[in-house]
């Protein structure tokens, strides 16, 4: 039998480092689009080992795994160690939908003291710390692409987007990053 086909990431080889800003593709991760009603949350939280957040624009993270609130019955679960998330969810009998989207999305890490300002080149949300604190996560837009924006640190954001949009998103970030304000 053939050996397992290799992986090719959509942003392989891309990187940018400028004054106060670093752009880098995130490592491959496993991702789950999780849909469930309120009743299923305790069981799903237990299975995933984190407490699924119930408040808009929030996230919960636990040892390399995180769940981002995207909608009232929708979460984006990311596991940076590549755990088999669909298998974890499959063990839960409470009503839910778990769809593997590990390869649908890819992510760009935007960090540095100019991160907020560079993201403001395409994201219309108010990203100041008071309105978008560390841990905040939201589906939104960046230029003409849809993204999920997650603030993982004071000056660190993770930008998730569909893989075919990643070239556009990275390029627009890079153009904004090259500008000096």
């Amino acid at each position, binding site marked *: *039998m*053939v*050996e*397992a*086909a*290799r*992986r*090719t*990431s*959509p942003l392989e080889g891309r990187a940018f480092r400028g004054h106060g800003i670093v752009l880098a593709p995130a490592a*491959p991760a496993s991702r789950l*689009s999780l*849909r469930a009603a309120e009743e299923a949350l305790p069981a799903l939280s237990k299975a995933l080992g984190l407490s699924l957040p119930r408040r808009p624009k929030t996230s919960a993270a636990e040892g390399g795994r995180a769940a981002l609130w995207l909608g009232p*019955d929708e979460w984006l679960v990311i596991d940076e160690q590549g755990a088999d998330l669909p298998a974890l969810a499959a063990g839960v009998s409470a*009503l839910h*939908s*778990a*769809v*593997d*989207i*590990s*390869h*649908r*999305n890819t992510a760009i890490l935007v960090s540095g003291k100019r991160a907020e*300002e560079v993201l*403001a*080149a*395409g*994201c*219309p*949300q*108010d990203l*100041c710390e008071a*309105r978008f604190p560390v841990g905040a996560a939201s589906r939104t837009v960046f*230029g*003409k*692409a849809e993204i999920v924006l997650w603030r993982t640190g004071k000056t660190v954001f993770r930008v998730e987007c*569909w*893989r*075919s*949009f990643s*070239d*556009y*998103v990275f*390029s*627009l970030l890079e*153009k*904004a990053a*090259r*500008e*000096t304000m």
Partner: protein
Amino acid sequence: MAGAFRLPAAGRLDAGRTLRFTFDGVSHTGLAGDTLASALLANGVHLVGRSFKYHRPRGILAAGAEEPNALVGIHRDAARRTPNVRATVQELYDGLNAVSQNRWPSLSFDVGALNDLAAPFFSAGFYYKTFMWPRAAWERLYEPVIRRAAGLGVAPDQPDPDNYSNRFAHCDVLVVGAGPAGLAAALAAAEAGARVILADEQPQPGGSLRFESGAVIDGKPGWEWAQETVARLAAKDNVRILTRTTGFGYYAHNMVALAERLTDHLAAPDAQAPRERLWQVRAGRVVLATGAIERHMVFPGNDRPGIMLAAAGRTYLNHYGVAVGRRVAVYTACDSAYAAALDLKKQGIAVPVLVDARQAPQGGLVEQAREAGIEVLAGHAVTGTRGRLRLSAIEVVPVAGGPQRRVEADALLTSAGWTPAVHLFSQSRGKLAYDAGTGRFLPGTHAQNAVCVGACNGTTDLGMVVEEALHAGAEAAGQTGAQARGATARPEARSPEGWSAGIAGPAPGAEAGKGGKAFVDFQNDVTAKDIAQAVREGMRSIEHVKRFTTTGMATDQGKTSNLHALAIAARMLDKPVPEVGLTTFRPPYTPVTFGALVGHGRGALFEPTRRTPIHAWAEAHGAVFEDVGQWKRAWYFPKDGEDMHAAVARECRTVRQAAGIFDASTLGKIEVVGPDAARFMELMYTNPWARLEVGRCRYGIMLREDGFIYDDGVVGRLAEDRFHVTTTTGGAPRVLHHMEDYLQTEFPHLKVWLTSTTEQWAVIAVQGPRARDIVAPLVEGVDLSDAAMPHMSVRTCRVCGVPARLFRISFTGERGFEINVPADHGLAVWEAVWAQGERHGAVAYGTETMHVLRAEKGFIIVGQDTDGTVTPDDAGLAWAIGKKKTDFVGIRGLRRTDLVAPGRRQLIGLKTLDPSIVLEEGAQIVADPNQKVPMKMLGFVTSAYWSENCGHSIALALVEDGRARMGERLYVPMPDGTIEVEVTSTVFFDEKGERVHG
């Protein structure tokens, strides 16, 4: 000395920092900090352009953004030629190259000035009246002539090489304008802890303090206070100061658009730096501190170069250190121009006369002028001006009548009063209120969370301006919840000047019509007489007067002229000003480049370019790509020397003889999951789903509620509660939106969820007699035999060692598989499939071959063979409607009278009698090619190709009663002859459909 008119003791520029520049090829010297206008004036150059309609010589009127006359071209290089730049706004840089506009052959001798002699023919409404008929003359005569003569400046003929930027910004308080009011408001808001953005169009904040010589704030000269305040603000974390930034648009919900100019003032801009940046600011509260704009006096000959606004003359003197003349007369109807006369006098410039239209002006400034020895002629009018390309004298008469006097002067400063700049307030949909006492439109009712302060609010006393602004700033900060950190100390502010009311409309004596044209709107060459004529000809509203005369419709939007025009119309109509109405202010306040509006969205960033995981392979193997929505798809794979026709013919032949491999990754995919998944599918598609077995697939048709085909695709059932739905490439987002709409709002009781998986899977289609041989070695754990895995089935398995969904489906009519693997593995799996394929003589094929092969089988493409008015029956797909179903989206629409009536266009095949002719898609079809025009169209061609496998051309068409016309001869009239066709079935190849089964 940078210019003969530069005064060593005046102004704030550094005499040591000289810059060279050229105007119409003549070299001059200016100073760092100059505008092009101040530098020209310093060199004694007043004539800078020709007017739009009459080509009259024109000079510099203003010292800021309101300038109507001094529009020039700035030429950096072949691609960077910006027309219509206001010389009063363009900052000087070393090597600046400016050219005058609207003149030929030269600025001082212009042939178009003949228009001025023919002026009687160019009166108000000229275009409307003259060019109405005869119609034929439009194309041959009027339009070409008008096109050559019309327009201001010359548009560049090369792509814009600069880059532009965009930022979204959010703040508690946005302050527009950084004069004394804006600075005070920003300071109060910032000190209260609010997030503040302060924007000003000038390179240095200060506003009116740049010319208001007598202003004292906090014990310091006004300008000094302004710069110190800026420094204080700049030191704060919660303040962003944007200079060279114009607030040009005020939109809904407190969004204000600012255009920041970043490089136009630089001699050698950094190539990476954006030229302009558009700021889309969302503010909690907006403080408008946009100031006021001075009006010129309307009198005969008021457009001669050398005549300018009083505050402009002061700005050139007090800020730039430039005397606008050696003998500068003043003509006014308000107090503030007296300060100009005094400032000039102080600098040793002769002020031969100060003409005041008012009978008995009084006040401190008037007295000071008299004390300074200036001859004040109250109750007088200027009735004419002299000089060819530059003012040499003015003619003065008493308003009450009396002898005319000629006064020699090389410049004349005029002021009819100040018009509050309510443009942004008005754009915010605020209602203006007319203050009859002062003859001004002032901010009335606010429509958004905004406040106006200072001159734009009608406040004219500097002390009150500062007080009002501090209060507004603190209040704005408090309103947005900023924690007050103590009130801002209120500095004492005073100025001898009050910007009290003046006059609107023609000055006394101008209406007589003698002594030359009295201009209201300089940029569009509209005179007081034109406005009066418009009213005489029946225009009653200012909106009609505006369109009839074009007053206020030029690029300056009538900043200096609107109130004059309105006053003239009101007087003619004998109505109060507000009843005649003020024209609506619309964005932009000043012209904005397309570049700024487009921002990043040019070139590669115009829109996302989406590529599949297999794109790199296709590129390396010579694919020609086509754009399908945002996707780049491999169109065909030409071998050496092949053209498209040859490549597609080879690909088509090979797929049916051996096999072909196709990248179908762009296909839309939606995972439908939940216990009610089948029930939901029943409602969304015409087909029945309940009894579709797990592991089997079905071709589904989706309708809109009106009964027309919306999308189609193959759906596989992965589990009782899980469907893998495919959509068209272009339809993916709207199909999901459509499904979510019904699920969330009409069928919320269904327990089902939808997830887009379009990009989770790379899809590799393997089609052709050898498809199974190619796929088999790579697949684990699935029996691929026809019995175990027949046509229209799906299996979850591993391919090349990675999890996969393997479909046995066909869009070619051949035995076919579609391998879905997680996208990051797509390229590697494709390479493995390709390696197998090569052993079996397979080709890689593109979208063109895909289209031909499906057309040979009569498979439709939604959006090509359907156009939003085609029902399943029209498309020959009535079989796909579940006959026993009682509900699905579109079920009622399908039963509408017109949709079941005879005579509908039905999809059929067409064969050309000459098999080599390929019809044109979109070509119309008729029954009798000899009938009279307009012919009755029976329908049109939707798809047409050369079919290598059939050996003749094929086409699909929608034709009236098409299925009843089998074998009939129809005709396709084309520009170069009529093509005869025969109506056939839509299936051209393998009519029995045996090949899909192997």
